[in-house]
C-alpha cells in the first residue's frame, strides 16, 4: 500500500466524519456512513469499515466521544458526538483544508503559457 496516498485519504475521512458529527449531532457509525455516502454522490468509493478506524482515532485524540443509546428502530447502538476540542480541531482543519484546496485550485487554474 502506498503510504502517502492513504495518509491524505485518512486525514480527509477524519475531517468529513468530524464535520458530519458537527452538522448532524450524535450519530452511530452506520448513520455517519450513510450521510457521507449521500453527500459524496457516488464520487467517493468508501469502504465503510474505515469509518470505524477513523472513529477510534478521533476518540483517542479526544475530539469525539461515544455513548450507548437506542437507534431509530430501538436497537442498541453506539452514538458518537463531537466534543468542544473536536469543534476547535474542526475549525483548524477546515481552514487548513481550504487553504490547501485554494492552492491546489489556483495551481490547476493555471493557463498554458506561450
Amino acid at each position, binding site marked *: 500500500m502506498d503510504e502517502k496516498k492513504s495518509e491524505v485519504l485518512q486525514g480527509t475521512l477524519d475531517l468529513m466524519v468530524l464535520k458530519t458529527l458537527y452538522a448532524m449531532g450524535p450519530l*452511530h*457509525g*452506520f448513520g455517519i*456512513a450513510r450521510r457521507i455516502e449521500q453527500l459524496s454522490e457516488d464520487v467517493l468509493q468508501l*469502504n*465503510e*469499515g*474505515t469509518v*470505524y*478506524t477513523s472513529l*477510534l*482515532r478521533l*476518540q*483517542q*485524540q*479526544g475530539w469525539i466521544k461515544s455513548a450507548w443509546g437506542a437507534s431509530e428502530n430501538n*436497537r*442498541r*447502538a*453506539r452514538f458518537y458526538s463531537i466534543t468542544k476540542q473536536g469543534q476547535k480541531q474542526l475549525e483548524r482543519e477546515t481552514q487548513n483544508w481550504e487553504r490547501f484546496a485554494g492552492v491546489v485550485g489556483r495551481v490547476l487554474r493555471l493557463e498554458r503559457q506561450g
Partner: protein
Amino acid sequence: MRPIRIFLSRIREFFSERRANREFDAELHEHLRLLAERFEQKGMSPKDAADAARRQFGNAALVQQRQREARTYLSPGELWRDARFGARMLRKHPGSTAGVVIALALGIGMNTCVFTFVNTLLLRPPAKVKSPGELRELWERSNHSSGLGGYLPLSYADYAYFRDHVRSFSGLMAFDGDSEAVLWNRSGQGDVVRAEFVSGNLFSVAGVDIPLGRAFTPQDDQPGNPRPLVILNNSFWRQRLAADPAIVGKTMMLNGIEFTVIGVAPPGFVGLVAPEVPDFWTPLSMVERTLHDPGRMSNRNSYWLLAEGRLAPGASTRSAEAEASVLAREIEATHPDTNKDLGAALFAVGPLPGPARGYVAAFTGLLMIVFGLVLVIACANAAGLMMVKGSGRAREMAIRSALGAGRGRLIRQMTVESLLLSLLAACAAIAFAAATSRALLRLVPSNMPLSIHVPVDLRVLVFTFAVALLTGIAFGALPALRGTRVDPVHVLKEELQAGGYRSSRMRNILITGQVTVCALLLFGSTLCVRSLLNANSINPGFETRNIATAQLDPGSLGYSDAKVKLFYRDLTARMRALPGVSSVSFVNHLPLDAAREDTGVIPFGSTQSKESALPVDVFRVAPEYFSTMGIPMLRGRDFTPEESDRNDDVIVINDTLAVKLWPGQDPIGQKVKVGDAKTASEVIGVVRTGKYRTLGEQPVPVLFRLTMPAQRVIVVRTLARPDAALDWIRRETQAVDRNMAATQLQTIADFMSFPLFPARATGLLLGAAGVLALVLTWIGLFGVISSSVAQRTREIGVRMAMGARRTDVLKLVIRQGMIVTAIGLAIGIGCGLAAARLLRALLYGIRPDDPATLAGVLVGLAAAAMLACYLPARRAMRVDPMAALRYE
C-alpha cells in the same frame, strides 16, 4: 498533550480489552445488518444483499484487527500468543536457547550474587525492629582524622549525656558493638556463648516485642545497681535450651555469675547490626562484673558503645545532627582532656555500622562494575547467537511479512522471544547466585565470629529481574531490528547472501567489542589478583605451620591471681609432658588479631616530655614465646622462667624499635621508660620485626614484656601436624580444672585465614570474573567464525576449485578471526592501561603497566582466539569443492 492522551487511552484500553472487542464486534455486525437490510429493500435476495453489504463494508476482519492494534499497545491476548509462539521457537532450537540462557545466567547470576552481599551488608534493615527508617546511628567524629578512623563509638559517660539531654530523639539506645565471649557453666561443663550488652531502653526504643517474658527497663540498667538479667536469642533458646517454655525465671551461670532469664526475644531478632549474632542480651551496667573489667562504665577513654536513636516526631536528620553537635561541644567544654575536638555525626541504620558502609559500598561497587562488564560480554554472546538464528529465520520473517505482518509486529515477536530467554536466564541466575554466595560464605574462616545469612529476598528478586529485563532488551534489540528488515521478494527467491554479509559485519563489530571488554577485564583482574598474591605472600614474621592455639581465661571464673598462676603452671607442665609437643608458651593476644595494646617509650634518663614518647605496640608474653612462634632472636636472650615469675622489668624489643631508639648502638642493656612507669625497663633481647596489625603495614616498633593478664592465648608448637594438639589442649584444660574451657581452638593456619580472608575472597571473585569473561568471549569468537565458515562454504569451494591450497583457506579463515581479535586486543589493552592508572593506589608490589601481565593477557587471549578460529578453519579446509558447488 496529544501523545499523552493517546498513551493514556491505550493504557486504559489494555485493561478493558475483552469487553471493548465484544462491543466493537456487535457494532460492526449491526452495521452490516443495516446495510444488508437496505439492499434487500432494493429488491435483492437476502444472500445477495449480505454479500453486497460485505463488499460495501470492505474487509471487516482487517478493520477489527486494526481496531485491536490501534486501541492498545500490546493486548494481553496477543502477548500470550507471542509468548507461546516464542516458547515453541526456543524449544525448536534447544542448542542456541541453552547457549544464550547459560551465558546470560552466568552473567546475571554473578551480578545477583554480588547484589545479595550488597543487600545483606548495606541495605537490609534490622529484622523485627519497628520502623527502622526512623532510627539513626550516633557517632563521635574527631575533627582531626579523616575516613573510617575519624569515627568513634561512644563511652558510657558520653552516651549517658546524649541520652539525658537530646530532644531530637524520642529515645537513644546503646549496645556493645562487638559481642563478647563468656563462659556458660552448665552442670560442671564450661561452654562458650556470646553476650551483647545493651542499654535498658533498647528493646522499647527499637520497638522489639518480647513474646515470652518481659523486656529490660531502664531500672534494670542502673550503673550503681546492675541486675544480672538476660534475654535469650530465640534460636539459642530453641537449640540449646530445647525451647523450654518455663525458662523465664530460671538462672544461668555465666562467667561465674548467676543470671536470671527474664525473656526470650522474638524469632528473627538478632540485634541491631549484622553480622555478629549474640546468644543473649544483658544490661550494659553488667559489663564490669561480667567481663572483670572495672572502670569500663566510668572510663571516658573507653569507646565501646554504638548508639542509635529514634527521631522524635518533627525532627529531621539535619536538626538532630545539629543538636547532637551542640551537645558534643557541651561535653567538650566540661571534659576537654578526653573530648577535645570531638563532634557528632548521624547515619541511617543499616546492617553494618555507618562509617564502614562507604568502604564496603566502594568495594562492592567495584565488583559490580567488573561483573557488569562480564554481563556485557554475555549480552554480546547472546546477541550474536540470536543473529545467527535470525539469519536462519529470514524465510519465516519474509513469509510473515508477505502475509501482512508489519515490521512492528515482527520486532515485537523477536523482543518477546529475547525477553523469554532473559527471564529463563534470570530464574537460573537466582539459583546460581544462591549457590555461589553459599560457597563464598564457606570461605569465611570458621573462627570469624560472624554468622552472615545472604537471603534471596524480594529486593534481590526485583534486582535480578530488572537486570534481566534490561539485558533482554539490550541483546534482543539489535537482532530484532536486523532480523526483521527483510525483503520478502529477495528472501523467498533464496537470495540470502546479501543479508548474510550485512549481519556478519555486525557480528564482527560485536565480537570486536567482546574481545575489547574481555582484554580490559582480564588485564584489570590479573593485576588485582597478582597484587593480592603479593600481599598474601608477605612473611608475617612468625611460623604459620605446626602451631596450635587456644584462648583461656581463668579470670572469668573469678579466680584469684595465685589460683590463675597455679592453673597456668599446671597446664604448661602437662602440655610439655606430651610426646608430640616441642614447646608451650603464652601471649596476651596473637599478632594480626583484632586486639591491640599500645603505649609510649622514652629512653631512660632522657629529658624528653611524655608527649614526645615513641608510640609502640605492646605484647605480653611468657618465656619461650619467640622459639614457639618461630620468631628469630637477633641479639640477646629470651625471658627466663624466674624473671617471668617475678614479673621483672625486662623487655624484648623488635629491631625496628632498636633502630629508632638507638641507631648504630647495641640496644642490649639499654634502659627505657615504658608508658607511665616510674622505673626503667632493661632491654635483654632483640627479635626480628614481623607484622602485627595488618599484613600490609609498614614496620611497627614493638616491645614484648612480662606481666600477663589472666586472659591468655596458649601457643603450642608440635612436632607434626598441629590438628591433634587442639584436642590435647581441650583435654588437658579440663584435666587441670573441670570448670575451665579452652575457646577458639585453632591451628595457626586457621588463624591466618582471618587476616587473609578479604584478599582471598576478592581474588576468587576477580579470578572468576576473568575466567568467565574469557570463556564467554571464546565461545563468542568460535560461534562467529564457525557460522561464517558455514556461510562461506560455497565461496571456499569455488576458491579451492580455482586452485587455492588448503593452507590458503586456513589463512583466509584465521585471518578473519585474528583481525577482529587484534583490533579488540589493542583497544582493550589501551583502555586497561588507562583504567589501571586509577587502580595504582590499590595495587601492592606491582606496577599498573606491569609488562608480564600485559604480555600474559596478550598472548593468552591471542592463543585462545587462535584456537577458536582454528577449529572451524580445519573444517573449512576439508570442504570438498565438488560437494560445495553441487550443493547450491
